[in-house]
């Protein structure tokens, strides 16, 4: 099982509590962006195109903890920018772990081996390593040779120290399904706890506009990638989201499921679109015109199938009906039968 039982229990309890309370819009994963500065310039990334004085800004640990407290999501994902550049990242993580948040620190791993000594292994802390494929594909995606090897070395070091390690992979439309499957084999052989995959999103500001996937292409590609999944593959995400990617089930987006907090505030409406910022989480939830976003509602949402919008939909499906729950149980226990 790719996700620990304690994490499954925590998330299940949280979601059921929200449902019992009748909360219509609840967050599942806080996307916490403490900085936008990165030590790579990947062609698919639309997060780092800012003037230097903006890239030099950082959220303080207190701001990060306040956001986690205010939002209340059981999981905190820390992307960026490159979080390991932030000098106070160990303090930020420590505070989140003390709050019993399941933290996914997303990193390109260039600095990871050097920084491991600053962190303590915990069931609440996972290093989520950006890996966009095997060596050739990954180094091309991050526009720098040698990064794949550095990341593999760092993963081994993190695992040796007892850390939870997962990978996060953006699948581009030029991906070769067989190469992606070999990549899954390689990551499992490396010993990571699980893998997270998602199609890319065509950021308006991202350099790589051409290589992002259209919706139909996405389903066809993922159907080929995930056809008869190998028994040894473990994915650190909802099995229903994987079914969604390969066109076996359809969902509407749940943009409030992964609310984003960064140096500008609470981002409206989601991790990918920037339609403005709210000063508080409550303002984000109460004042965003959610009905304007999602598939068929907004031109920039038309082709999006990204995890930050649809994984929460899949989780909601799991707990929203007996049918959804039984599909999840079946997909979890019999992954190769799908």
């Amino acid at each position, binding site marked *: 099982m790719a996700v620990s039982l304690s994490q499954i229990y925590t998330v299940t309890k949280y979601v059921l509590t929200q449902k019992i309370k009748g909360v219509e819009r609840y967050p599942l994963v806080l996307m916490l962006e403490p900085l936008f500065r990165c*030590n790579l310039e990947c062609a698919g990334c639309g997060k780092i195109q800012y003037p230097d004085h903006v890239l030099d800004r950082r959220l303080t640990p207190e701001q990060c903890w306040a956001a986690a407290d205010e939002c209340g999501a059981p999981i905190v994902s820390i992307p960026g920018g490159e979080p390991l550049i932030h000098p106070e990242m160990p303090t930020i993580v420590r505070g989140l772990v003390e709050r019993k948040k399941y933290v996914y620190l997303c990193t390109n791993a260039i600095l990871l081996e050097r920084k491991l000594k600053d962190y303590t292994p915990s069931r609440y802390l996972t290093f989520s390593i950006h890996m966009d494929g095997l060596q050739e594909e990954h180094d091309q995606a991050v526009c720098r040779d040698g990064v794949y090897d550095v990341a593999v070395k760092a993963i081994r070091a993190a695992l040796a120290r007892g850390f939870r390690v997962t990978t996060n992979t953006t699948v581009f439309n030029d991906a070769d399904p067989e190469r992606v499957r070999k990549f899954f084999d390689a990551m499992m052989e490396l010993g990571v706890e699980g893998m997270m995959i998602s199609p890319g999103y065509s950021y308006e500001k991202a350099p790589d506009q051409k290589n992002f996937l259209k919706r139909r292409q996405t389903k066809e590609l993922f159907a080929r990638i995930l056809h008869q999944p190998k028994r040894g593959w473990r994915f650190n995400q909802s099995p229903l989201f994987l079914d969604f990617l390969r066109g076996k089930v359809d969902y509407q987006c749940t943009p409030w499921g992964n609310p984003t907090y960064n140096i500008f505030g609470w981002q409206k409406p989601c991790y990918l679109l920037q339609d403005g910022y709210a000063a508080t989480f409550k303002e984000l939830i109460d004042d965003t015109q959610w009905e304007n976003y999602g598939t068929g509602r907004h031109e920039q949402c038309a082709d999006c199938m990204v995890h930050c919008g649809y994984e929460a939909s899949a989780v909601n499906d799991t707990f929203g009906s007996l049918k959804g729950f039984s599909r999840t149980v079946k997909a979890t226990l019999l992954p190769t039968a799908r």
Partner: protein
Amino acid sequence: MGNPKVGNPANGSLEGRTFWPVDLSELIQAVDKAFDYRGDVTLELRSGERVKGYIFNRNAEATLPHLQMYLMGQAAPRLIPYSEIVTVSFTGEDTALGKSWESWVKKKESERKAQAVRVEADARARGHL
């Protein structure tokens, strides 16, 4: 929208342009463009003050329409009502310009390598590698 100081550059970027909105509708459009722009913008205010910074938020539907911007060297963002704005100039570098996948591919292999080396050297100089 009134009187851009320079013509639309061939590269499609707003960098270098100035807008003098003649009414609220044009002002809203100009601020929206500035909000989408990934570079610093200079605003000329009715007081004669010129403020340069990054516009990260705007609300044209508020009772008092306003924008928020980060000024270089100042920790807290500054809130500026639309009613104070006279001109909107795209004075900072457009950080999203020239980084398209097509331009990356079009570059010769040597240029791509040179760019990758520059990015790496920049990160190293900042102590991020």
